[in-house]
């Protein structure tokens, strides 16, 4: 019980450390990676069950009372995110067994992967702003290495942009953090929320809102919102597929999570200003992302730009700022993480078969691998929001929330964008699966042995099944999201859980 909250951080740290100590044996590292991810998923499920049953859980690390020590907090949003991390973590860990080269494994792929998961979980669970910075750095550092590992030219160019821009974001984050500590003398988010809650005088409130914008920029870079997303399309298509799949699913969502967290807990003094701004950014993010995707001619680049566009949906719910809308955001994040990782994994299979992801060099896969084609359709159509898949309900809840508030512009944009998403998913389908393979690009397919095939296919099929399942049982999941949204809209329970914990 006392380990409930730290466990999702401890498990990957232990797994990463164990893999590091076992650096000589690739086989042991592979087992550690899969077992560690599985255990992480189990701890995530335990966490969400506990939080669902008993409300927001908090743990004072080191037994120091809040706000003096560091508090880990899990509300439904955090618990959901941790569970999703477990799901994607396990799926990609298994998939990576088939696709990661021995060279990558020898220099530490599995260790880095576990540390990445550790950082992600830490960011989701911490209740302390500076601690959040630390977890961000853990996650970023691991992602830097994973991204750059391989040393090809494209990877290097992508990595330099990714690293530089993310460090810029960290610098902004750190500065905002320092200023915030100077103002309020504390770093515990619940404590900060408490101090901000009883009506600040104008100058102080204005300064807090200024800091809010700084945090928005810092987290916005990490979440890849407009106009701060450049690093993403420059880099996400360059590393090995297993790496970009986990990046695509999880990393930007940590930024989104951070934005949602601080703009529902800390910076709620002037929602008319801040949240309207977020709504505008959401619309711009959706549009620019999807338009970027339209121009792309490579499988993973199309997918990368779609991440941006969907980040727009996720913060649209925050911009609308009602329980229903936040529930929509949470539902959307849930759906997106599963679907987007899966699409990247599918792209990896395509790359494995064809040796390339350039659309003009692909083709003929519907004829030769109808099973893969059908599995591609599930996440692809879900991404476009076709019923009754998960994406439909994600979109529906946001559209319903927007319409019930009379926010017609953003709703229209979101619907238009979903049409364009459909367009570009079907473009992928046309080019990869329907079109005949052009003769001049026909190359000898690399043989895939059955074991490897199964290892790649199992996670893809599993995630596709999950996508369908979410669609068919949207009701209980949305109910959960709605309760999460209500928790976010009323921070008092969060504050109470942190500040009045017996220990």
């Amino acid at each position, binding site marked *: 019980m006392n380990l409930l909250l730290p466990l999702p951080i401890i498990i990957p740290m232990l797994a990463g450390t164990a893999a590091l100590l076992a650096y000589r044996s690739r086989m042991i590292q592979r087992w550690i990676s899969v077992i560690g991810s599985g255990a992480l998923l189990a701890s995530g499920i335990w966490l969400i069950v506990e939080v669902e049953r008993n409300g927001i859980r908090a743990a004072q690390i080191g037994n120091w009372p809040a706000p003096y020590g560091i508090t880990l907090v899990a509300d439904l949003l955090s618990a959901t995110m941790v569970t999703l991390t477990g799901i994607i973590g396990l799926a990609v860990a298994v998939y990576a067994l088939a696709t990661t080269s021995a060279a990558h494994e020898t220099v530490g792929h599995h260790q880095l992967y576990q540390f990445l998961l550790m950082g992600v979980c830490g960011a989701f669970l911490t209740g302390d702003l500076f601690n959040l910075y630390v977890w961000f750095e853990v996650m970023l550092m691991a992602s830097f290495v994973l991204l750059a590992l391989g040393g090809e030219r494209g990877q290097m160019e992508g*990595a330099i942009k990714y690293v530089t821009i993310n460090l810029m974001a960290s610098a902004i984050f750190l500065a905002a953090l320092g200023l915030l500590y100077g103002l309020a003398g504390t770093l515990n988010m619940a404590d900060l929320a408490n101090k901000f809650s009883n009506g600040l005088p104008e100058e102080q409130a204005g300064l807090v809102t200024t800091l809010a914008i700084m945090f928005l920029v810092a987290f916005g870079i990490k979440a890849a919102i407009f106009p701060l997303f450049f690093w993403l399309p420059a880099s996400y298509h360059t590393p090995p597929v297993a790496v970009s799949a986990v990046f695509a699913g999880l990393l930007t969502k940590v930024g989104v999570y951070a934005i949602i967290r601080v703009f529902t807990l800390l910076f709620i003094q002037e929602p008319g200003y801040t949240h309207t701004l977020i709504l505008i950014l959401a619309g711009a993010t959706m549009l620019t992302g999807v338009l970027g995707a339209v121009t792309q001619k490579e499988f993973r680049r199309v997918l990368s730009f779609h991440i941006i566009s969907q980040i727009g949906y996720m913060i649209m719910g925050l911009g609308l700022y009602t329980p229903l809308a936040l529930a929509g955001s949470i539902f959307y994040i849930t759906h997106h993480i599963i679907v987007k990782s899966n699409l990247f994994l599918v792209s990896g299979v395509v790359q494995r078969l064809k040796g390339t992801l350039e659309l003009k060099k692909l083709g003929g896969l519907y004829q030769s691998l109808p099973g893969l084609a059908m599995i591609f359709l599930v996440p692809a159509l879900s991404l476009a929001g076709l019923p009754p898949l998960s994406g439909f309900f994600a979109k529906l809840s946001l559209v319903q929330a927007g319409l019930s508030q009379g926010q017609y512009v953003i709703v229209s944009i979101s619907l238009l964008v979903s049409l364009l998403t459909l367009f570009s998913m079907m473009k992928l389908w046309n080019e990869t699966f329907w079109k005949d393979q052009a003769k001049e690009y026909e190359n000898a397919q690399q043989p895939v042995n059955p074991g490897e095939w199964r290892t790649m296919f199992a996670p893809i099929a599993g995630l596709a099944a999950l996508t369908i399942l979410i669609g068919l049982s949207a009701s209980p999941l949305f109910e959960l999201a709605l309760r999460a949204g209500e928790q976010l809209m009323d921070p008092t329970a969060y504050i109470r859980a942190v500040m009045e914990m017996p220990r």
Partner: protein
Amino acid sequence: METILAFVIGALYAAGIYMMLRRSLVKLLIGLGLLSHAANLLIFTVAKLVRANSPVIAAGEQTLSTPHADPLPQALILTAIVISFGVTAFALALAYRAYKSVGTDDLNEMKGTDV
């Protein structure tokens, strides 16, 4: 002194940003270094400056009696320094590796992965 340090911080940020905007990869790294100094100094300054009295309790005492520097921001900065050291070391290795595989350190030549 806060006022003066505020300008020092501004100067460090400006210098760091300027260096990051250069086309040379190496200058970019120097810019990053300047930026992290600026951020650390910012935390330190905003959290009130107190001259000379470090937050170390004298042997046999239970607490600090004299006015003293705030220990918490010091701990934060220490963490930040260490993290930025790790980042810098990695960035150096990355720069080396990038230079080897791209063949130049001109950042404007490194745009093959966009567009």
